[in-house]
């Protein structure tokens, strides 16, 4: 089978599962719409008696918070219902089939994630267009900001892919790792600024998050978008994101090799 066709088939697995489940898509739509309205209302309410705080005015804060909600759609497909998470495969012993296919597991994982992210991105784009038209989200101040934001968003998603992969790879080394996964997912949400922009947190918290890869996934692109990070500082931030891509790529590559040694086919 030509490799391009094989790649296409692997990439479309999860999006196809979603497209064949209209109730789930309707639920996703309602959930996204309600969450955007609630988050925008909360931040507007908070700014009712406040001007600029932590370097963010009301419109910047609302834009940041709504874009964070839209961005979480990008990697939010329900693999669990499809019984295709690494955790489930480890639990049921079916992970071995990943190693029996003509497609290497790391490539299958990457292609599936790519399909998911493109599908999720389509949702985020539509949500973004509606929010801009409704005046909930500000447009970027210039074409240069928009361009830098796109590059940063791409790098951020790339870093996010490796973080999610590293969380999944944990499953190969621990028999029970539900708690570790939850802790890492929580850290990702908190330290990337999903719950609240990192600018509102104390200085020690911002310094700590600077040493970790999580802020590169969301906080950096969104801060560039709303203008909290100036264009003059964008180069350094993009370089840090790129560095995290390289470091995490090397780390997860090493872990894939070690993980392969631990997979045992039924019967030995």
């Amino acid at each position: 089978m030509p490799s391009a066709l094989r790649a296409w088939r692997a990439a479309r697995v999860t999006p196809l599962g979603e497209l064949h489940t209209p109730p789930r898509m309707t639920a996703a739509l309602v959930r996204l719409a309600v969450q955007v309205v609630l988050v925008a209302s909360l931040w507007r309410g908070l700014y009712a008696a406040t001007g600029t705080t932590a370097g963010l005015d009301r419109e910047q804060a609302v834009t940041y918070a709504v874009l964070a909600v839209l961005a979480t759609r990008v990697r939010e497909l329900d693999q669990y219902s499809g019984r295709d998470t690494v955790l489930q495969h480890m639990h049921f012993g079916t992970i071995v089939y990943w190693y029996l296919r003509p497609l290497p597991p790391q490539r299958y994982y990457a292609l599936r994630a790519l399909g998911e992210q493109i599908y999720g991105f389509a949702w985020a784009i539509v949500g973004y267009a509606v929010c801009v038209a409704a005046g909930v989200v500000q447009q970027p101040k210039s074409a240069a900001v928009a361009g830098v934001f796109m590059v940063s968003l791409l790098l951020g998603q790339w870093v996010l892919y490796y973080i999610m992969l590293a969380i999944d790879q944990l499953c190969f080394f621990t028999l029970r790792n539900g708690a570790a996964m939850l802790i890492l997912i929580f850290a990702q949400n908190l330290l990337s600024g999903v719950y609240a922009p990192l600018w509102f947190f104390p200085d020690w918290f911002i310094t700590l998050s600077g040493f970790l890869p999580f802020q590169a996934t969301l906080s950096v692109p969104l801060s560039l978008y709303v203008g909290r990070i100036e264009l003059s500082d964008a180069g350094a931030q993009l370089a840090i994101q790129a560095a995290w891509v390289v470091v995490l790529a090397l780390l997860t590559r090493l872990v894939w090799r070690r993980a392969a040694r631990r997979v045992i086919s039924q019967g030995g």
Partner: protein
Amino acid sequence: MSSPKPWFSLKPWRTVWRITKLNFRSQLEYRSEFLMMIAIGAIWQVSVIVFATVLLTRFAGMGGWESADVLLIAAIRMLAHGLFVLFLGRVHGLSRHIQEGVIDTYLVRPMPVYRQLQLQYFPTNAIGDLTVAAGLMVGALTRSELDWTAGRITYLIICVLGGMLLEAALFTVVACAALRFPAADYWSRWLEELLGTFGSYPLNVLPKAVGGFLTFALPLAFVAYFPAAVLTGHGHDTGVPYWLAAASPLLGAVAYLGTRLLWRWSLRHYTGVNG
């Protein structure tokens, strides 16, 4: 001639206690996972405290509420949630049991399905949840300038229990839906997210339509916001009659009993994956 059945028997509760002890011991089998599960409960709740602290230090109060009063909302909500996780939280994962066919086994055992579901495993994370929640409640009560009379404390305890039952009622409704549509699990996760995000703040900070949605469409306001409003003197500014806000715990109890009836009806109509 057989003797009549007593109206109350301790036997089922002894069984529940024995199964719970076994479940707890089985959780101890993987020590690091056990400790991490406690940690995750605590960390998840600390996130609420971090977020609330950030908001309260950056913004001038919330919707006319003092910071100590806002903390009381968060504390009631968190304590109610911790108790829900400990006693009734397993209803959350029902769709997984349906998908794996486990529920079919429950149906043939001599114990109510709902009870079997709740006895599926020991919720270790509840230890972390409750530890942080109790700490937050102590902090909120210490900072509060209210006179904590016996009546107020009794009402607070009843409110926490009412909040627990209301949360259990909401998740039981989703579980009833999951008996017919296993994909309803998606709504369960969303509900958890909504309760965690908006259950800890004064809802008058939101526009009226949004506050109305979180009061009448999804009765989230009755879990902690209304009880805290009644306790702190904001009971007349909630947008609903005072008596309704004050009756929040009763609503929780009625809602839970109602959803248990709905559960019985839904279970009778459960057909399983094999028809």
